[in-house]
């Protein structure tokens, strides 16, 4: 059973009297544990698709079924918030950390709002994940005391700390140099293997695509290519 089943997703933006189609009917199955990259040129609809999968945006038509049971179009705003809270992790290109919180607290944020585990367990979990992303010893630093790569690692740790079934990453390496990008991607791949977390990236960076186990190409709001396997033909 697929983790996610996208059924004829369409998204049309209304700009005055003009309808601008961003997604023109995408149907996809995303399996558990996939490490998938959605790529395509700017304006092709990658981010829109990612936002729809992440329940941050609603499709104009079509539906997403989660684990074969839950139809996301049937959920109201509060239920969608709960769905994101318990099932999804997000990594943004701008990392979006809270400046007044330390690295530890930024990561802790994601599980504090779930509040299902004791303080002791929570602390262990946060420290473990920070160690996994190579930030041991930096947990008490605030974002302005961390480098760009370190901030993005905190964002990854925040996305993963609650063991979500799906992590959505929108151009996660866009603001990083190539060396740091590789480090960050290595961490995500390691987490994918270690925790079995499903990752979906949007990117147009070939370096990111090389890590993918599935490459979905989007052009003008449509899937034009969908390759899976170990030796993918990564575009340059």
């Amino acid at each position, binding site marked *: 059973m697929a983790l996610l089943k996208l059924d004829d997703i369409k998204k049309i933006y209304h700009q005055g009297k003009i309808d601008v189609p961003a997604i023109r009917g995408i149907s996809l199955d995303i399996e558990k544990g996939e490490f998938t990259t959605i790529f395509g040129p700017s304006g092709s609809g990658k*981010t829109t698709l990612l936002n729809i999968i992440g329940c941050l945006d609603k499709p104009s038509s079509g539906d997403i079924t989660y684990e074969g049971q839950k139809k996301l179009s049937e959920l109201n705003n509060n239920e969608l918030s709960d769905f994101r*809270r318990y099932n999804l992790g997000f990594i*943004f290109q*701008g990392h979006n950390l809270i400046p007044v919180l330390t690295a530890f607290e930024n990561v802790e*944020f994601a599980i*504090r709002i779930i509040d299902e585990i004791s303080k002791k367990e929570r602390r262990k979990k946060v420290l473990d994940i920070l160690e996994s992303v190579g930030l041991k010893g930096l947990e008490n630093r605030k974002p302005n005391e961390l480098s760009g790569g370190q901030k993005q690692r905190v964002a990854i740790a925040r996305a993963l700390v609650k063991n979500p079934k799906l992590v959505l990453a929108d151009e996660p390496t866009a603001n990083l140099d190539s060396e740091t990008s590789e480090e960050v991607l290595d961490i995500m791949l390691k987490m994918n293997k270690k925790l079995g977390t499903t990752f979906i990236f949007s990117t147009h960076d070939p370096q990111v695509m090389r890590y993918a186990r599935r490459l979905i190409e989007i052009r003008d709001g449509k899937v034009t290519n969908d390759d899976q396997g170990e030796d993918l033909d990564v575009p340059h």
Partner: protein
Amino acid sequence: MFLTKLALKNLTRHKKRTIITAFVISFGIFIFLVSDSLMVGMSDLTIDNSINLQTGHLQVMKEEYWENKDELPMNNLIEEDSNIINDIKNTVSSDNYTSRLLFGATINNGSEDYPINAIGIKPDDDQKVFDLKEYILEGEMFTGGQNVVIGKGLADLMGFNVGDYATLLFRTEEGTFNTIDAQLSGVIDAPHPEINEFHVYLPLQLAQDSLNIGNKVSKYLFRLGERDKSITAANNLNALFNDNGSNLHAYNWEQLSQELLAMIQQGNIENMIMLIIIIVLATVGVINTVILSALERLEEIGMMKALGLKVREIVYIFVIESTGIGIIGSFFGVLIGSIGVYFMSNYGLSVSSMTEGQSTFGIPIADKLYGGWEISTFIFIFFFGILVSILASILPAIWGAKKDPVKAIYHK
């Protein structure tokens, strides 16, 4: 708890903005407290002055006299009946009794005359009810004979000194003119402009003889232990008068000070204006702060929504931040307000220099004005400042929290 902690940490993001917004609230609270303290001080002082120098706690007179009392009528006077007076004393449980005879007259210094209120008193009894004697500035209070005591303002106006002779011209009950030539035995400088400028005190016997009214007086006046007892005492007396079929009526201090209380009430409007100013200042400050914060944190709001925070949880963060600003503002407002009120209460504000002893905003104070403390006001304004802060933050917080997460994250 975590969201509360986050909200409080957010207060440190823009310390200057937090301090300025809190200061605006503090300033409003300071102005309110000082203003309220002055009003409390003014109210207490004016009421005490009025009771101690003019009304006493309780007065008994004919209802017909009460209706025309401002004209100082010579009809509807009452006989000074010792049986009735003893009944009243027993009912109100007080021996502090005096009687007064009031009539309109003009005072003449030989070249000019001036309209005054003449008041016949029995000095020994009068000092059981009033503090006039304490305010004798020059000379002394008469014990009887052809003597008068007048206020300093009137003495200055007419050029009188102690020992000088003044002539009082007045009409008797029958409408005929009569005069009293009396020596000025003393000058009063009381903290009550009306007494200083318009009152002439003379022995009751002299007044009764000159008016040819036997032992009639205008009213009986009493001093009770506390002014709060006055209302019950007046009610008891009126029940007694009704039972006896008497045409007398007792009036408590509130009824006797109606005009004064109305003026004080008018002064309280000033406090309401101060409250409105606080509301406006705090509201503008807090709304401005919350909107700026929301705009600055759009990406963060988007991220929080992506993490699964609901609108009400994001609103909660902003409201707690505003509560923090309200607490800081109210705390320092009450603190500096306390300092202001302390100085007002201990050192006072000289209003005589401002008004040259004439009058004080129409309220009878001719001395220093001291502030008063009312703990309930401090508690009220502390929580009021916080409440305004909270209420002002709700709408802009909802505005910020309802931002489309996609637009917020990508700052569109």
